[in-house]
């Protein structure tokens, strides 16, 4: 097997392990904030139901965190195992950024997680609140440093090359590289939205089964309230990201997203692309809309064609085209669901529209799919570079045998499928069992609770 096979296998292995890993932080960042809300409400109102809800979501948070840790260990080693030359060349910059992530974010989470999970009865309420906030802060810091590192690979800054190695000359430029701010906002929102739909989906399941309704109401109300702000905001941040970073620093990616071979004012909705042209095998075009996307409502602005990029420097069209569409149409669907949710709430029908609960249950993993789609677009869109415009991916890979990588990849797939199955099984079981005690059963305190609920849903 050739060097190309080995390179492709190494990339597939990284893509799989990173996609698997990102799933769990995506859920835990948002869930940790829900935990803060629950515990803060419990401290303020002394309502046991908030504590029960806190305990329920803490259980789901805990298992997600554990899988995030073990899959994170694999990633930290893969930098050196599969991408040895990359590890050498960017270690002084990316290595340091990820070491900061481990030292500050990861250990903050891991340290306070013990108190959060096992501390009840041993520590007071204020300390528990503090531990919850620290775990949550850890998850956000983790996103921050990872986005610093990855954004630097998209828009490297503040370095000099010494014998091929990237060495820092200005840390401020390194950390606040041109794409960091907008990409951090985009990813943080994405994680919160993914968790929002995860929480809304599980809450909807309880509505459909008519069980634990107070927990379901609170969960749904908080999640949809927050989503009503974040999902539209994400639309704005996403389009800002395209104009300030993708078009400017990764024009080839933008062309692959459009997926057109002839300059056209139309928009290719679905297509079977041909990597090297001169035209796509098949495409379904919406007239005029391409010009609208470019900001010209008159319909006269054409989208530039893929032929502007030389074949050798053109990233793979297929994964970028569809990765972007999974993300974008996923967002559009989420936006529709959120708008419907606001209408239902205003008409007081949020808690008894079963068709809407069914829809939300089906949408439980949609935020995660959108994150995967976005990352495929960003990482594939940077090809053939691993450090944009500076270090080719093909030169960054370790000199391994294809058989070694094939073996490690196959076993990892088997292990990760088992892990994913175990996670789904565990969450499904935790949800089926519901919160431990019956405090959350319907009772005469409903009136007090709905007041608390209104306070906890700032966006509605």
């Amino acid at each position, binding site marked *: 097997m050739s060097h190309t096979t080995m390179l492709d296998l190494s990339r597939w292995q990284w893509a799989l392990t990173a996609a698997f890993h990102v799933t769990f932080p995506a859920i835990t960042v948002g869930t940790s904030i829900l935990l803060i809300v629950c515990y803060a409400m419990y401290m303020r109102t002394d309502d046991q139901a908030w504590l029960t809800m806190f305990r329920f979501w803490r259980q789901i948070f805990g*298992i997600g965190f*554990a*899988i995030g*840790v*073990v899959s*994170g*260990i*694999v990633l*930290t*080693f893969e*930098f*050196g*195992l*599969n991408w*040895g*030359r*990359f*590890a*050498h*060349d*960017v*270690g*002084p*910059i990316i*290595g*340091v950024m*990820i*070491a*900061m992530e*481990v*030292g*500050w974010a*990861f*250990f903050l989470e*891991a*340290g306070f997680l*013990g108190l959060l999970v096992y501390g009840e009865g*041993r520590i007071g309420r204020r300390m528990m609140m503090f531990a919850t906030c620290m775990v949550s802060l850890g998850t956000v810091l983790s996103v921050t440093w990872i986005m610093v590192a990855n954004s630097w690979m998209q828009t490297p800054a503040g370095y000099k090359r*010494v014998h*091929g*190695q990237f*060495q*820092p*000359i200005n*840390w401020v430029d390194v950390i606040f590289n041109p794409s960091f701010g907008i990409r951090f906002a985009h990813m943080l929102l994405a994680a919160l939205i993914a968790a929002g739909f995860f929480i809304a989906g599980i809450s909807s399941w309880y509505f459909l089964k008519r069980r634990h309704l107070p927990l379901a109401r609170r969960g749904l109300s908080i999640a949809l309230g927050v989503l009503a702000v974040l999902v539209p905001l994400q639309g704005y941040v996403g389009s800002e990201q395209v104009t300030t970073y993708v078009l400017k620093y990764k024009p080839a990616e933008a062309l692959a997203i459009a997926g057109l071979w002839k300059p056209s004012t139309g928009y290719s909705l679905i297509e079977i692309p041909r990597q090297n042209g001169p035209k796509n095998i098949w495409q379904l075009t919406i007239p005029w809309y391409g010009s609208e996307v470019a900001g010209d409502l008159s319909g006269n602005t054409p989208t530039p064609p893929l032929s502007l990029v030389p074949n050798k420097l053109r990233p793979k069209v297929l994964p970028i085209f569809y990765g972007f569409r999974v993300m974008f149409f996923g967002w559009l669907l989420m936006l529709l669901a959120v708008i419907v949710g606001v209408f239902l709430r205003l008409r007081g029908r949020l808690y008894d529209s079963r068709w809407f609960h069914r829809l939300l249950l089906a949408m439980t993993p949609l935020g995660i799919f959108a994150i995967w789609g976005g990352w495929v677009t960003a990482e594939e869109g940077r090809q053939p570079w691993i450090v944009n415009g500076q270090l080719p991916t093909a030169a960054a890979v*370790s*000199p*391994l*045998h294809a*058989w*070694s990588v094939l*073996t*490690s990849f196959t*076993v*990892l797939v088997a*292990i990760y499928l*088992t*892990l994913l199955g*175990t996670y789904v099984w*565990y969450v499904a079981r935790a949800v089926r069992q519901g919160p431990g005690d019956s405090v959350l059963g319907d009772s005469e305190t409903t009136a007090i609770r709905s007041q608390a609920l209104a306070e906890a849903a700032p966006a509605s």
Partner: protein
Amino acid sequence: MRLSDGWMIAVVLCLAMYIVLDGYDLGIGIMTLFDRDAARRREMHGLVAWLWDGNESWLVLLALSLWSGFPLVTGTALAALYVVLFPMLWSLIVRGVSLELIGQHDGWHRVWGPIFGIGSLLAAFCQGAAFGGLVAGLPVHGANFAGGPFTFLHHGYAVLTGLTAVMLYVLAGSAWLYLKTAGQTQRRAARTGRLAVILLAAGTAASWLLAPIAGSVTLDPGATARLPVWIAGASLLAAGLAYAFFSFRPESRGPRFDAWPTFAALAVYAGGLMLTGGLLYPTVVPPHVTVHSAASPHSSLLFLTIGVGLIIPVILTYQTFGYWVFRGKTTEEATPV
């Protein structure tokens, strides 16, 4: 002392914390394979379940402190040890998850129990093999590893160090069980511990004697100047082994202090690290990659020392707190004091 030497101390500290902390729980995992009593196995699983994830987080910090401070080492050695490090990663994942699953369902321990044991055994073996492969030398050309997938084996030397690591971890596991349990579990731990000491002594001696034959180790001219470090390390190692043997007492006769084997195991770890460091320094990946040639530039090391180095004492403090919370014996039956 240069900043790169200082950061190497941080790396070695992470390594030491990892092998000491995960060493005992890997060792206990291996021992569950050889215990037929389900209740005792449950007790052992419980002892590991508390803190294994905190212990393993040192492996993450070790990987990152090495990569960020010494990119050339990570860039070459990890690829060279691919064949042995990936099985280690598989084992660590499977073992962590199986431990969480053992208690979830009646009867699951029949499946996940042995998987936990085998995962622990394979992880320990791979770590020892990786160590042997590294110290015996790995060819490096420029910034790339220049050997094949099995170069690290060095005609089987890596297998020897792999087995030796298994014995080291079994010793640490026995010592920890001896400290944390009582009754039959403790007596069995003492007997296993004594056996592990003998095998470990043989394994260490063989690894030591065969190292020059197996690999391309060349002594730095400064190595003789570090003779006191060698002597101290070797003495600590030998004294630790001897004391471990005598402080494991299967029959309780008179007053005793159950932490002695653990202290003896710590002396073995410290002696082993001093010996290895004394032999290799300033080399990290023999024969050519040194602390100074592999180090990140000054500004990176400075950032690391301030940004990450200062957090290490904080991490140590709260982990100590965690161990303090879970102090004491797990076995309910009273221990003769």
